[in-house]
């Protein structure tokens, strides 16, 4: 581990991409060879789901690679696009009325681009308060001008919440790229990768653990599978993954990497749990899939844990380094 830390940046990156794409190719080949066998319908469905997830990971890896080559501004733009698509999906599944038209326009075409512009401009103080302070006022004002009191609080709260999750939360991921950490110039992308990996590990391990353990769910009406033990196993694995990635991080000791992994992974899966509650409320099982009227692509499902974990992780890192 220690020797890895002393490699030059470009060597580390080379190694990282070789490992990442090597793993992906391996998994894809295995998955493909398994399709050649006959299997039951349930297995087929599980396999289809796995294929969808695998495709998402491929897309993510390629995007990561592109953003690495193209630099901070382009990756900020890419995150902005993902934010846009996630918010689009969120708004589709909430009930807005005619009077919300202008506030939605404000959210999509003013708030979202401005937030990412602020990130790209490295104005971190403004970036943390822009949405919770200024947009918090602006959205209900525009909504009230829409002259429709029916379910006003509910509608406004939903729009605010969508902005908080899909724009504010998400924008903390590219903000990591631009953090000025000690001895860590030009390596922000590693921190983003670290975050994405630990969150994904927590999610996958928790899912697998809850299937094996069959514990009594904590909140059956919301999630049939969420239990505290499965959550702890997921977060613990995230901590372990974080420790293994220590060489790529700016943290001062392996323990720092472990604890950050725990924080990010744990909050990501809790965020996923919250999203499940939200889906139940909206009456859909999964944002994507056949249940949804509008054929939403299921992107929100994938990025929600990241949206919740990113701000927590971002501020933990700032606090850790005292910047």
């Amino acid at each position, binding site marked *: 581990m220690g020797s890895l830390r002393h490699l030059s940046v470009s060597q580390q990156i080379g190694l990282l991409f070789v490992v990442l794409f090597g793993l992906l190719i391996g998994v894809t080949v295995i998955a493909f060879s398994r399709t050649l066998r006959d299997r039951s319908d349930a297995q087929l469905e599980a396999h289809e789901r796995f294929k969808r997830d695998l495709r998402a990971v491929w897309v993510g890896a390629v995007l990561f690679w592109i953003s690495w080559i193209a630099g901070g501004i382009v990756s900020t733009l890419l995150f902005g696009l993902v934010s*846009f698509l996630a*918010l*689009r*999906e969120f*708004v*589709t599944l909430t009930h*807005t009325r*005619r009077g919300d*038209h202008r506030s*939605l*326009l404000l959210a*999509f*075409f003013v708030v979202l681009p401005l937030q990412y512009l602020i990130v790209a401009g490295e104005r971190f103080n403004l970036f943390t308060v822009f949405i919770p302070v200024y947009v918090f006022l602006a959205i209900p004002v525009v909504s009230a001008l829409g002259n429709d009191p029916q379910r006003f609080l509910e509608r406004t709260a939903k729009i605010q919440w969508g902005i908080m999750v899909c724009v504010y939360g998400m924008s903390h991921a590219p903000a990591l790229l631009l953090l000025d950490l000690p001895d860590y110039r030009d390596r922000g992308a590693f921190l983003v990768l670290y975050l994405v990996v630990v969150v994904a590990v927590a999610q996958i391990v928790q899912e697998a653990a809850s299937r094996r353990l069959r514990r009594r769910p904590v909140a059956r009406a919301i999630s049939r599978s969420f239990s505290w033990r499965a959550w702890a196993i997921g977060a613990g694995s995230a901590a372990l993954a974080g420790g293994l990635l220590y060489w790529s991080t700016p943290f001062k000791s392996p323990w720092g990497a472990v604890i950050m992994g725990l924080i990010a992974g744990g909050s990501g899966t809790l965020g996923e749990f919250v999203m499940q509650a939200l889906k139940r409320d909206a009456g859909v099982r999964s944002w994507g899939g*056949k*249940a*949804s*009227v*509008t*054929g*939403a*692509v299921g992107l929100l499902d994938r990025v929600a844990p990241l949206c919740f974990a990113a701000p927590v992780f971002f501020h933990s890192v700032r606090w850790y380094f005292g910047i």
Partner: protein
Amino acid sequence: MKLPEVAGLALAAVARLITGAQGHWYGAPPKAEQRIYFANHQSHFDWVLIWAALPSDLRSVTRPIAARDYWTSSRLKHWITREIFNAVYVSRQRTDDEDPLEPLMEALRHGDSLVIFPEGTRGNKVDPAPFKAGLFHLAEAFPEVPLIPAWIDNVQRVMPKGEVVPVPILCSVTFGKPLALFAGETKHGFLERARNAVMALRSVH
């Protein structure tokens, strides 16, 4: 590539970015045959949505209907409807010696597919308004052309009547089983059946 093609591709890309423009085909796969699509009508955006949901090779042979007085009133509107969409122009003022359906018949004789909104105007109710007779006359005159019902979902949220900027919200177009006129079916009966076929697609998922 010429300018209208590029503009068309750009427009389709924007429509997809804003609405997703998902086409779901139940009962009739997208195919390069002559067809008449008919759908509910809630927004100016309806046509663009159907057009963007079609596979790109079907777009050039599928034509919308445009009101001549409105869509030729400025050079830009005229250019968009003529060059990008290849629209069929109809006049809203009825004159005695001219059949308002004649331009549509002409296009069908020519082998093109059409998209029509038989409600005649944009509605803002949950259910579509009663269908106008035009669909019946087309079905009568071209019995061999399949009539495909389509339900456009959510588009009224994208651009409500009176607004100009669309909000990004996912929409879908559900295409159903082809319909044909029965022998001896009355005008009223057929139009009601067609309207029900469109509404039935609302719950097909």
